[in-house]
């Protein structure tokens, strides 16, 4: 019943660190290079998921359930954020007929 999962016995915790860092950096590169607001939003979701995976991995390796509760709350906040953010993108499209963030430069000095 209480046997240790095989992935925890065979895979070191550092592999999860490397994997999450790579996923996070892919999200950062997407935010920096893409100009479409919806794609930037998806890349933010990628970064949130990299953090979720790392929290779950540490929680599973340390047998500490608090980390997985935090993953649950991160998912709840991400859902609320996507809901409001997509409404903002729809409003931007309504006014500008585009979701390209280069057009949204009115506040640039």
């Amino acid at each position: 019943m209480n046997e240790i999962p095989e992935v925890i016995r065979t895979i070191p915790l550092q592999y999860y660190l490397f994997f999450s860092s790579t996923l996070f950096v892919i999200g950062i590169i997407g935010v920096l290079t893409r100009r479409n607001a919806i794609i930037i939003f998806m890349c933010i979701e990628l970064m949130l998921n990299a953090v979720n995976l790392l929290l779950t991995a540490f929680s599973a390796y340390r047998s500490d359930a608090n980390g997985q509760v935090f993953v649950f709350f991160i998912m709840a906040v991400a859902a609320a954020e996507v809901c409001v953010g997509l409404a903002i993108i729809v409003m931007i499209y309504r006014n500008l007929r585009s979701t390209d963030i280069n057009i949204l430069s009115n506040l640039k000095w």
Partner: protein
Amino acid sequence: MTGSLFYFLTFLTLFAALGVVFSKNPVYSVLFLILTFFSLSGHYILLNAQFVAAVNIIVYAGAIMVLFLFVIMFLNLNMDTEQAQKKSVLTKVAGAISGGLLLVIMIAVLKDAEVGSYDPENFDSQIGLVENLGHLLFTKYLLPFELASVLFLVAMVGAVMLGKKETQQRHF
């Protein structure tokens, strides 16, 4: 067996994440993002975190992705809308270089970090199950759990207010 499954899921996740960033068509980006979420759920199942895996599929692959796809269909963005601009290539190269440098630094730091490992005596493989996490959510984390419902109410009201048509606005 499990080790090769771990590597397979890792490469699948990274491939799909790169697909999200480099697809020209936003619909393909969303489909790659769904693949990323499913392979991450596979990782959660490997770690015996079944509650997180189920919630990941329900919330991300179920709700958030439907929202994304719906907005993309709604705005008719299923073609490449990013015009080639003169600063575009420079921005892309600068973004890729700074992201890559961050990855190099993070891996160089984490390579020698003391993260420890599992404790074979006190290990509890049941912590990721619904029973344990539900107990924790409704005792220790009851206040944040209830505040999350207030957050959802605020987000719902905000989305309805933002999405409502106003009389002075241009319609499409």
